[in-house]
């Protein structure tokens, strides 16, 4: 699937593709907000052209009438000479959603497909499996539920040896799983988890990727935390998943991507993650990020962001649980090299990286001082205006450092930090402004000089404009009071400088 992942352009212009992508993206964002984000994968040979679709996979056949569908079904049932051709035509027709619905409503239609699918006629079996796969891709729940009787056979063939059939069964199952809770409720007692646990030991990359796909679909179910994740953690799956994710750079990127998302779905929804921690998830994922960063100069393979994203999430959530004691400082370098690599083409990774950076530096003197002494501050400051989320996260990381004390504040102030903070105070986002006020407070607290500098740069007015914003006014007032204090006793910052100069 990984090798075949890039959709065919089907003769369309780049502009058409961009429009299509924008539409799909908007639909996905809406679905996510409604907690309805599901996707299905289509495993389709590019033989569609033989039936007149010159342009490949994206031309959907016209819907057939009830009678035409019935005729196709009869042709398939009759075992007539051209049963194989009828089945091929049926498969092609089933690309149409309306035809799918008409087909499943016909008496005995699914039973006929099941019969062929479980027959020993190898070609018919594959073709029947492809028909079932087309049905599984439907977005109509009734179509997925019509496939309920076939799930036990789909599982049975997963233990078989035909690579192509196994792959088809996997993607069909993965599609059915997200469409209906009824399907999931049936697959669990039918033993899907143990079957996947034995499939994950397959030597075939395509099978592994398919297993990862099915599992990732299962783990996104709303009942996953109570019904599915405990079963997965109890099985042999976790000990195989982790090495598959970590070997993704060398072999099997497709499988690594799927299993990395599986780990993310488990980790972000599970309470203690004891199983994964005991398997060494934190050092394993850390060393994956180090490897990855060290390979970046040789050029990141296309699609690498699909692996990096879930790996960052897993590590970040796990570190939130365990803290960073004993962590390898090189992780910090790797993180900035990854930021650099993806900044331009996949800016969405910036916020994910910054979240991990927060979890590394929060309450951790080692990573705070590494950030300063490795001279990574200029790069961090450049990310201040990257996006709304990034602004808040960069400010939070700076607060993590400033909170450590006078010396750290002084090092922060060696950068043109105040000049960069001032324009942030005019942002419409109260969260960003609030975090900015917090940082100013820490800087003024530890370094009185900073307050004076701030006034000189006109910070006074910037603060006054927030005196009427309810959630900001108290903090703005407190900072104004600090700024107005007549310079008296030497500040902590000056005292420290005196000691170290």
């Amino acid at each position, binding site marked *: 699937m990984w090798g075949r*992942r*890039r959709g*065919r*352009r089907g003769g369309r212009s780049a502009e058409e593709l961009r429009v299509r992508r924008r539409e799909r993206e908007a639909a996905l*964002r809406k679905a*996510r907000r409604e907690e309805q*984000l599901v996707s*299905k994968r289509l495993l389709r040979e590019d033989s569609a052209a033989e039936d007149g679709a010159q342009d490949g996979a994206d031309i959907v056949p016209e819907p057939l009438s009830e009678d035409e569908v019935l005729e196709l079904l009869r042709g398939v*049932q009759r*075992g007539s000479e051209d*049963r194989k051709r009828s089945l091929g035509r049926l498969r092609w027709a089933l690309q149409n959603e309306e035809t799918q619905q008409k087909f499943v409503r016909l008496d*005995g239609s699914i039973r006929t497909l099941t019969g062929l699918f479980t*027959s020993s*006629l*190898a070609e*018919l079996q594959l073709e029947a499996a492809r028909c079932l796969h087309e049905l599984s891709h439907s977005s109509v729940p009734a179509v997925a539920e019509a496939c309920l009787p076939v799930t*036990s056979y789909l599982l*049975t063939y997963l*233990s078989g*040896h035909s690579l192509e*059939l196994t792959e088809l069964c996997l993607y069909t199952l993965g599609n059915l799983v997200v469409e209906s809770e009824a399907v999931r409720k049936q697959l669990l007692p*039918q033993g899907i988890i143990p079957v996947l646990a034995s499939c994950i030991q397959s030597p075939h990359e395509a099978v592994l990727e398919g297993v990862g796909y099915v599992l990732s679909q299962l783990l996104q179910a709303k009942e996953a935390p109570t019904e599915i994740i405990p079963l997965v953690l109890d099985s042999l799956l976790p000990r195989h998943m982790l090495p598959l994710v970590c070997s993704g750079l060398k072999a099997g990127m497709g499988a690594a991507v799927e299993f990395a998302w599986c780990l993310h779905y488990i980790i*972000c929804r599970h309470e203690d993650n004891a199983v994964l921690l005991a398997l060494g998830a934190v050092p394993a994922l850390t060393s994956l990020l*180090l490897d990855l*960063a*060290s390979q970046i100069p040789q050029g990141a393979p296309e699609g690498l962001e699909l692996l990096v*994203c879930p790996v960052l999430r897993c590590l*970040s959530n796990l570190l939130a649980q365990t*803290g960073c004691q004993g962590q390898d400082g*090189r992780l910090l*370098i*790797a993180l*900035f*090299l990854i930021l650099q690599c993806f*900044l*331009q083409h*996949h800016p969405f990774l910036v*916020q*994910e990286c910054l*979240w991990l950076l*927060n*979890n590394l530096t*929060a*309450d951790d003197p080692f990573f705070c*001082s590494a950030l300063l*002494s490795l001279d*990574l501050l*200029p790069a961090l400051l450049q990310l201040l*205006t*990257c*996006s709304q*989320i990034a602004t808040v996260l960069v400010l939070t990381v700076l*607060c993590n450092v400033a*909170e*450590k004390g*006078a010396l750290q504040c002084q090092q922060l102030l060696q950068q043109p930090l105040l000049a960069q903070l001032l324009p942030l105070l005019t942002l419409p986002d109260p969260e960003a402004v609030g*975090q900015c006020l*917090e940082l100013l*407070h820490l800087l003024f607290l530890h370094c009185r000089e900073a307050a004076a500098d701030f006034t000189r740069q006109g910070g006074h007015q910037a603060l006054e404009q927030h005196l009427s914003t309810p959630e900001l006014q*108290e903090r703005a007032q407190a900072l104004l009071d600090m700024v107005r204090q007549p310079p008296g006793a030497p500040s902590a910052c000056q005292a420290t400088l005196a000691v170290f100069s």
Partner: protein
Amino acid sequence: MRNAHCCLAMLPLPPGLHLLLREGLPPLPQDPPSPHPPQPAPPFTFAPRRLRLGPQHPLFEDGDVHRHLYLQGVLTSLEEVAERPKVSEFSCHISGCSQVFDTLESYEHHYNTLHRNVCSFCKRSFPSGNLLDIHILEWHDSLFQIMAEKQNMYQCLVEGCTEKFKSSKDRKDHLVTVHLYPADFRFDRPKKVKSGSKHTSSPREQGSSVPMDVSVEMAEQFQGNPMETGPEENMEISQPAASPGPLLPEKRLYKSRIPSTICFGQGATRGFKGPRKKV
């Protein structure tokens, strides 16, 4: 878009980071132990916190959308899919099987479906090694019946379930009630005829009595022309159990076929060496 103002292409990173990544960090200057910072003084609230984010956190939106664009195949690029290499036509090397192929994949599928998990006693083919093992035990192990009278010997067909049963009927009940298998699950038909007659697989017997399998030689022999002698198991499944569909009588016409015990003539598979699997 969220990242609309992100127009910076390069970060001002210090040189030599790759070297440090390879060789490790130099010893960092030791900061003087600072007294523990005070708790945030109201109205200020900042305290360092490691954040655990749940699946619906807004920070994940962009990444999740990207993942799903990938799943839906919208991340298009110019690269085209590699075609499967076509090879000159060749036929299956298993004796008695004359199926012809033009891609390695189609041959592989054929071989794996029909010749891999084949019972060496009765030449039946099974979808998985697990089902073949169970078949051999239950059908061809002479001790099985004796043992089965004393203890539960019929293993559950579901991988990972270790339950055993007194009879195949008990197993079937278990599969249907516990594992939600269809009542007519085709890989576990009860064994109705005595095992002695298994080699004389007349169509009638074979169709009604064979559990879990498909008759390999029958299937292959008529593969090119399934209509006339469509293997009965296909028919049975398409119209199973209690609801014989309107098409059933019509299909019954096509049942005649060469018994598998015939050792000569076109399509015969039995001779001194049977179609044993070779890997």
